[in-house]
């Protein structure tokens, strides 16, 4: 009977998780969605905890459980409490600009947990070791391990602890291939081993998966982190699903599938937005295009740029009826989103229409710019996606590009030799005037020159973005 309650509870939890994701289809329903997810989680944990405390959980067959499990219960409660407190502290302290790092760290925890649960269930006294089960364990640990170390490296790259330049070892594809083959190959003796004697193979494979995960992500440049993090999101889901197979737990399987598909979709969107194939991404390397030397298009932009001042910028903005702001990660780095909003508010009060245009890969995480703008109190209905606003740019009086480079590069549309050719971009140059805020004329992450800066209707406002915008605001107010 307790089994049926468990099943029903898990079913409810799964439905609540699905509803939670569905709630994210709009800002209005999103908060409820989060609530559903929380309820579902509580339900699942409560019921599982209850079942564990009571005897004979079917999750691990044929094992006798000790009757008084208050030791186990106490330890569990303690462990959950510790984890919850740490999680609460992390979530309340993290700056929105560091969200990518937090997300990466959380992925690594899921990976780690999958590895531990996999190994743990293997060494468990009396564990059932049929081949299907063993394969599931193997997969769970493999994917979990890759996710674990891959996410740690992603975190380090995002946080600047490791350089963003990709680490291209000679023969890296062969190295990766070797590791994968090794991981698969070792499965054979593992499966054939009696009882828990295959532990050594499992541990070796775990080690390989750690190295593989780290190596794969080390070989990816900092600019591609949005795709990497989405991919790791996906992997963490598959790891959880594999653990679910291993433990014959449908809730784990369903949740893992939800998370896995979510990450896969985000990765696909990111890849499309960067014009890279997803197969290329999955197999780790980004092809010969990603080299040590910054790639150059055949047509390096010629000419001079027109410099402008904060006063002239303020003048242009004052006279403009429609303004679009294109933020890039540079704006977040400069912490300029708050003064940018101050400027937006001022201009809107003057009767101008101000909107933001977000490119799918702006920022270091999908949807990152939206969160940063929300944090700066920007109302979300003036924050538009690239597809929604690109068509309006020709009628826009002023476009301000703040800390963004590749996402407004016209070379992506018409220069077939450019490394970013084919990537959809925000067509800023079609507006009447473009003002680019940049620290200097250095190239962006793709290392490509940007013809936008040399166009006749483009003016460059050099300097730190936050500083410049603050000055523009005071100039507007005077």
């Amino acid at each position, binding site marked *: 009977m307790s089994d049926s309650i468990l099943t029903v509870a898990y079913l409810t939890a799964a439905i609540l998780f699905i509803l939670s*994701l*569905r709630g*994210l*289809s709009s*800002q209005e329903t*999103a908060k409820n969605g989060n609530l559903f*997810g*929380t309820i579902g*989680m509580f339900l*699942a*944990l409560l019921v599982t905890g209850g079942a*564990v405390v009571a005897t004979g*959980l079917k999750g*691990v067959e044929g094992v006798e*459980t*000790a009757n008084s*499990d208050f030791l186990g*219960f106490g330890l569990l409660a303690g462990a*959950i409490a510790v*984890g*919850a407190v*740490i*999680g609460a502290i992390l*979530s*309340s302290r993290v700056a929105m600009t560091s969200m990518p790092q937090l*997300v990466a760290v*959380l992925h690594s*925890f899921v990976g*780690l*947990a999958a590895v*531990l*649960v996999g190994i*743990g269930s293997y*060494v*468990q*006294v009396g564990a059932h070791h049929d081949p299907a089960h063993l394969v599931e364990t193997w997969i769970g640990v493999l994917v979990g391990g890759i996710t674990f170390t891959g996410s740690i490296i992603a975190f380090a790259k995002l946080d600047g602890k490791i350089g963003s330049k990709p680490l291209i070892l000679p023969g890296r594809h062969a190295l990766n291939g070797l590791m994968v083959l090794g991981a698969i190959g070792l499965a054979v003796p593992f499966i054939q081993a009696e009882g828990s004697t295959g532990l050594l193979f499992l541990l070796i494979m775990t080690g390989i998966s750690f190295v593989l995960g780290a190596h794969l992500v080390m070989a990816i440049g900092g600019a591609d982190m949005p795709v990497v993090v989405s991919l790791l*999101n996906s992997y963490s889901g598959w790891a*959880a699903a594999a*653990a679910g197979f291993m433990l014959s*737990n*449908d*809730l*784990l*399987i369903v949740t*893992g*599938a939800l*998370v896995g*598909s979510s*990450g896969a*979709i*985000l990765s696909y969107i990111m890849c499309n937005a960067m014009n890279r194939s997803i197969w290329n991404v999955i197999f780790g390397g980004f092809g010969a295009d990603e080299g040590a030397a910054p790639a150059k298009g055949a047509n390096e932009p010629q000419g001079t740029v027109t410099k402008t001042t904060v006063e002239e910028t303020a003048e242009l903005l004052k006279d403009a009826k429609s303004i679009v702001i294109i933020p890039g990660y540079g704006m977040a780095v400069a912490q300029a989103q708050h003064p940018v909003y101050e400027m937006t508010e001022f201009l809107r009060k003057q009767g101008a229409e101000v909107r933001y245009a*977000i490119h799918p890969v702006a920022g270091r*995480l999908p*949807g990152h710019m*939206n969160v940063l703008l*929300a*944090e700066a109190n920007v109302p979300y209905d003036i*924050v538009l996606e690239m597809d929604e606003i690109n068509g309006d740019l020709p009628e826009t009086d002023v476009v301000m590009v703040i800390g963004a480079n590749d996402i407004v590069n016209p070379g992506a549309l018409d220069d*077939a030799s450019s490394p970013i050719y084919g990537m959809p971009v925000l067509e800023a140059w079609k507006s009447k005037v473009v003002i680019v805020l940049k620290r200097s004329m250095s190239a962006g992450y793709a290392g490509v020159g940007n013809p936008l800066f040399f166009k*006749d209707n483009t003016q460059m406002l050099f300097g730190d973005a936050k500083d410049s915008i603050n000055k523009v605001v005071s100039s507007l107010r005077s």
Partner: protein
Amino acid sequence: MIEGERRVALEPEAVKALVERGFEVLVEAGAGAEASYPDKQYAEAGAELLAARKDVWSRADLIFKVNAPTELEGGEHEADDLGEGKTLISFLWPGQNPELLERLAARKANVFAMDKVPRISRAQKMDALSSMANIAGYRAVIEAAGHFGSFFSGQITAAGRTRPAHVMIIGAGVAGLAAVAAARGLGAVVSAFDTRAAVKEQVESLGAKFLEVEFEESGDGAGGYAKVMSKEFIDAEMALFREQAPKTDIIVTTALIPGRPAPKLILADMVEMMRPGSVVVDLAAEQGGNCELTVPHEVVVKHDVTLVGLANLPSRLPTLASKLYARNLVNLLDEMLDEDDNLNLDLDNEVIRGCIVHKEGELLWPPPKIENPSPPQPKPAKAPEVKAVAEETAAPSAVPNFIFVSLVVAALVALGIYAPTDFLQHFTVFLLACVVGWHVVWNVAPALHTPLMSVTNAISGIILIGGMLLVGVGQLSLAMILGLVAVVVASINVAGGFLVTHRMLKMFRR
């Protein structure tokens, strides 16, 4: 100084720019007075004001002027004050003033003509002809409105309806387009004519109608100028104007051909056909006028039509005209400065070569003919190439897709044959969940992708269950310890994930 000229070659902002570049700036006292730039502003910008004109000529190495040096009272000539080795930059019209050129040559100075800056896109910021033409076109419409007896825009008032004025602009160059824009701004119904087909798009983008002649001859000459048309074309053009004249209230003509007298486009009979009270503004008056009846420098009324033959319209907006002219000058000067801000007359520089008239007295104008490019035609050739590349990359992906699908089918079949039943049950759940996940997540708003990631992190903390199962079974053991660690770590995810999602979602507001 030419009679009636109100512009000044440098205004205070430009003086500041020059001072920043390390120049000493001398200004003739009162030079900017008629352009609303009092001496005080010049002084504040860092200029030294000199009461005597001659002092400016003698002390300065580089002299900026609006108009070419002219004869003064008493038989003297401004050019005589130009010292040897000095540099003069002003409007010059070298093709029309051979005597002036001789006089200047004798001075053994460097002379530049602002009206000869090449009409290439790089030099647009130095092109004074364009900046002045822009102003002239606008002013032409203002003059027309000032002499016209009605509104430009149509209105419905209690006292009755007024119909909008019909304005025809002849010549859609810089001045013509500025006139189109100004007339549209005042609410008139505007049509424009030009022999060059390339400007049709520009005219229409300003909201005006492009008048066309039923004739297959392109008027596009070199350098974006029009060329002289054949007689047949001109006849057709005249027929068009005759057709339009009775319907048009305002005509602004701007047709010029470099080096030749202005073409006669509005003939006497057409003026007679126009309604009484109509206005013709002839921007080509100084070159003879596009209208037969124009009297240069005057406003006259003939056949009840007001004919405005005023010249030098930019001078009537002296504040703006001076500002733009000064900008052109400073930009041209920048072209002539090397990295150390020293004057370097590099004859390989297309712009400098184009507008230099004398170098130390040696005549260098006109420059050797370079085929000036016309405005680029739209490039249809490139598009098919791009398409071909795109299609090439699209086609190969069909093959991997097919392989992928076959592999999946093979795998499913293998599973069906070999896998144990409970695995298949779980696998069913797995696949269905993937499908649900796919559909649900595609609906997530892109703006919420970051909260999506944090929520999925939170729910993947469900792996906590696995840890729980390890802990709750049996005595203290390796499995239990591993399970405990897994529980701690997964709890971080659950708490952290949901809390940070909540924090982010709270921030979104309308």
